[in-house]
């Protein structure tokens, strides 16, 4: 990473930027852990790209906060916003550290998969079989988050990763899905993707 882009002030609200930083930094942790767990080089590269995006956002947030500060009261109230933003930035850096483990071929001991089996949230990687009921459905019609407590955080389609897919995204056969959620939920998603389960069983 030797190239640094010039960062210009953009008239965006502090709130909007901070929401984006918080969401991306949390997503990055899951993506980074997934990259380590599934030893996925390209997913790790996606994490690094997101990290530099979060850096840009951090600069923009600092600028927007400065513009919004008019008096000492504003300064006192807004310093907390900057602290939260700096925490989100640190989390994105921590995620990038994990991605670097993968990219430098340091390797992750097989023990790590044991850790993920025992952790509170499960992560899963599953390929969508042509017979899967997920194929051809939009994420918004599946409502996986509310029905089985699972969130699809990335989709690998042909040679590209779609990170944090939106509701309008349609799942296609042969997509590789990375999802997080409750252990029973991610198990169910894997079966749905592989076509061994043909009905979305709501809990």
């Amino acid at each position, binding site marked *: 990473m030797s190239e640094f882009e010039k960062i210009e002030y953009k008239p965006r609200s502090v709130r909007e930027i*901070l929401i984006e930083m918080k969401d991306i930094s949390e997503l990055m942790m899951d993506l980074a852990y997934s990259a380590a767990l599934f030893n996925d080089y390209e997913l790790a590269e996606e994490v690094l790209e997101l990290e530099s995006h979060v850096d840009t956002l951090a600069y923009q947030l600092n600028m927007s906060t400065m513009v919004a500060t008019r008096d000492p009261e504003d300064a006192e109230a807004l310093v907390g916003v900057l602290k939260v933003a700096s925490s989100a930035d640190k989390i994105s850096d921590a995620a990038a550290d994990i991605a670097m483990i993968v990219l430098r071929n340091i390797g992750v001991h097989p023990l790590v998969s044991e850790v993920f089996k025992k952790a509170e949230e499960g992560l899963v990687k599953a390929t969508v079989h042509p017979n899967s009921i997920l194929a051809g459905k939009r994420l918004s019609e599946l409502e996986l988050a509310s029905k089985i407590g699972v969130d699809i955080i990335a989709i690998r389609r042909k040679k590209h990763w779609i990170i944090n897919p939106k509701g309008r995204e349609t799942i296609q056969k042969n997509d590789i899905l990375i999802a997080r959620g409750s252990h029973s939920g991610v198990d169910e998603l894997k079966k749905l993707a592989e076509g061994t389960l043909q009905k979305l069983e709501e809990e």
Partner: protein
Amino acid sequence: MPSKEQIEKIVEMLTELKNTSELMMDLAYSSILLNNRELAEEVEQLEEHVDELHTEFELLVLSSGFKRQESKNFLGLIRIGVVTEKIADAAAEIAEVVLRQLEPHPVLKLVIEEAEETVLRIQVSENSSLVNKTMREARIPEKTGMWVLAIRRGNRWIRPKPHTRIHVGDILIAAGYAEGEEDLKQLATGKSPERR
């Protein structure tokens, strides 16, 4: 070669580091959203716990007698441990905002409320089907897509374990996808028939 016992201990400690660091982030954001000093203090205490646990974890890995060719893999483990510690620090930094300022800026509350994952504080009423169930029996994540981070009972905080029993009047602090918020409200208040 590390013994089976050492390996089990390594897995157990790294799992606790990962879970605790993530719990801390959720609690830290919750402390801001609810402007709650006690939650923030809980985060600070957990941060000390993570520091100690992380040191123990590193000592354990270093003393487990691995071979040269395995050492690269163990480096990956150590690095993941470091990351959990960094997340814990970042969470403590967020909690500090609450501990130092009386009123977080309204923008922070909006941010946490509008983010994809949300935090909910809800009291369990006597009509709720959750009453007297253990966390495992209650199956809240499966039913609502939300995780209970902490339970406030009287004036103490309980970190829910699978066998923790839910009482009438407990206040649940839960995080999860915004879609699950309404489901959990109904479950805790018992106001609408439970979905299968």
